[in-house]
């Protein structure tokens, strides 16, 4: 589904991604973790071409992302993305947020888009808020709407870029619950997160990044059992410290 082959990226002379290779198969949930500044958000943004790469190749469903001939808007319309800061459109009502891209990009009729949007809103438990504006919802609610907005496009995979990092602690679970449900339904997901509980529960594989490199790319069992690299062990011991 997602193939990342020998990807390198520079900001000026600073190399943010160093020869990264990995893949996400259909139905797989891959969690990407690592210290801040390790390039994990950059990597996930390369997958739908929000960030350009200078070397290597990224394929999504056999479409080459870093090919100038690729119709990026079309590709992106099939790849859902959820951002750290939700990025709902504040001037549009929740319903309009859900419908905008369905109508503009997929060319669905207004009524069809609305029905689809409301069904998904119901699924994330927010049907009552359809006519509100993003600024009137809590962070957790906004992020659930953002997930519904991405799902409304009928994506074949979903990218999550630290979806719970900007949330108050008590709102993290309501968002994770939605994501767990999605994973269990077989959605292909690439998730940048520090939520190791989530990784334990639903991830198939865990990727650990540091300084722009993929240091570990293993099954969940192996990662939590005995990560091979010292760097990953250190990282885990720091962030799991309070959970155990």
């Amino acid at each position, binding site marked *: 589904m997602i193939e990342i082959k020998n990807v390198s990226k520079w900001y000026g002379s600073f190399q943010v991604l160093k020869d990264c290779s990995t893949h996400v198969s259909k139905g797989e949930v891959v969690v990407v973790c690592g210290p801040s500044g390790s390039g994990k958000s950059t990597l996930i943004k390369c997958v739908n071409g929000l960030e350009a790469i200078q070397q290597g190749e990224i394929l999504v469903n056999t479409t080459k992302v870093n090919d100038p001939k690729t119709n990026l808007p079309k*590709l992106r319309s099939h790849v859902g*993305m959820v951002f*750290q800061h939700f990025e709902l459109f504040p*001037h549009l009502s929740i319903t309009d947020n859900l419908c*905008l891209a369905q109508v*503009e990009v997929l060319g669905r009729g207004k009524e069809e888009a609305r029905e689809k949007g409301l069904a998904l809103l119901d699924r994330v438990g927010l049907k009552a808020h359809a006519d*509100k504006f993003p600024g009137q919802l809590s962070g957790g609610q906004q992020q659930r709407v953002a997930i519904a*907005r991405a799902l409304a*496009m009928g994506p074949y995979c979903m990218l999550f870029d630290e979806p719970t990092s900007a949330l108050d602690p008590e709102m993290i679970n309501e968002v994770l619950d939605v994501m767990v449900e999605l994973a269990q339904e077989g959605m292909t997901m690439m998730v940048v997160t520090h939520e190791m509980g989530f990784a334990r529960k639903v991830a198939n594989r865990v990727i650990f990044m540091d300084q722009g490199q993929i240091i570990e790319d293993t099954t969940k069992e192996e990662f939590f059992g005995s990560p091979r690299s010292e760097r990953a062990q250190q990282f885990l011991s720091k962030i799991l410290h309070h959970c155990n």
Partner: protein
Amino acid sequence: MNYNWDWAVFFKSTGIGEEIYLHWFMSGLLWTLALSLCGWLIALLLGSLLGTMRTLPNRWLAGIGSAYVSLFRNVPLLVQLFVWYFLIPDILPESMQTWLKQDLSPEVSGFLIVTLCLGLFTAARVCEQVRTGIEALPRGQRQAAAALGLTTAQTYRRVLLPQAFRIVIPPLTSEFLNIIKNSSVASLVGLMELLAQTKQTGEFTANLFEAFTMATLIYFTVNMGVMFTMSRLERKLRVPGLIALGGK
């Protein structure tokens, strides 16, 4: 000061038919409004286009926008007006010169030139307001729109510009007020707008104080009206649950 105030002067005959001096002011006001509104329309459309261009990834388009701003914002309005009025018409193709200087009445050709001048001058300022409005939005908004598959044009039309315009309504109001006030430069090229009529009334009647008091009141009232309308617009477009976009 020994001055004989005579407020009845506005109702005195100008000596031309049934006309009284108040008619001069009304006619001047209409020219002022026509100049400002037409100029504002040009400024708003062109300025929004240029402001948008300045934020595009395409360097050429962004470059054109910033060159425009440099040129039109760094030359005094009066200099620009004289160039448009006295110099440009002479370098136009023959047929356009004939049209502008002979086919059109001097009033209409003067009006067109001043409107264009005011519009282009103010467009540079509107451009900068619109640009800052767009740049004030979080980068993530652009990314989120792109991630949903919206094209750049759709992103601007549906996501960025509606938010940017809400943010810049207050500075745009200032530009709207400015163009109304700046339209008074038209009096220097013989267009009988409000200031020109005021001066003429002063010269004909020797009641300069009354004439300029009247002009002051008219400009003040018109601009208060614009301010009121714009703040109503701002309230109407207010986004519920949001402070940053003019909400509460």
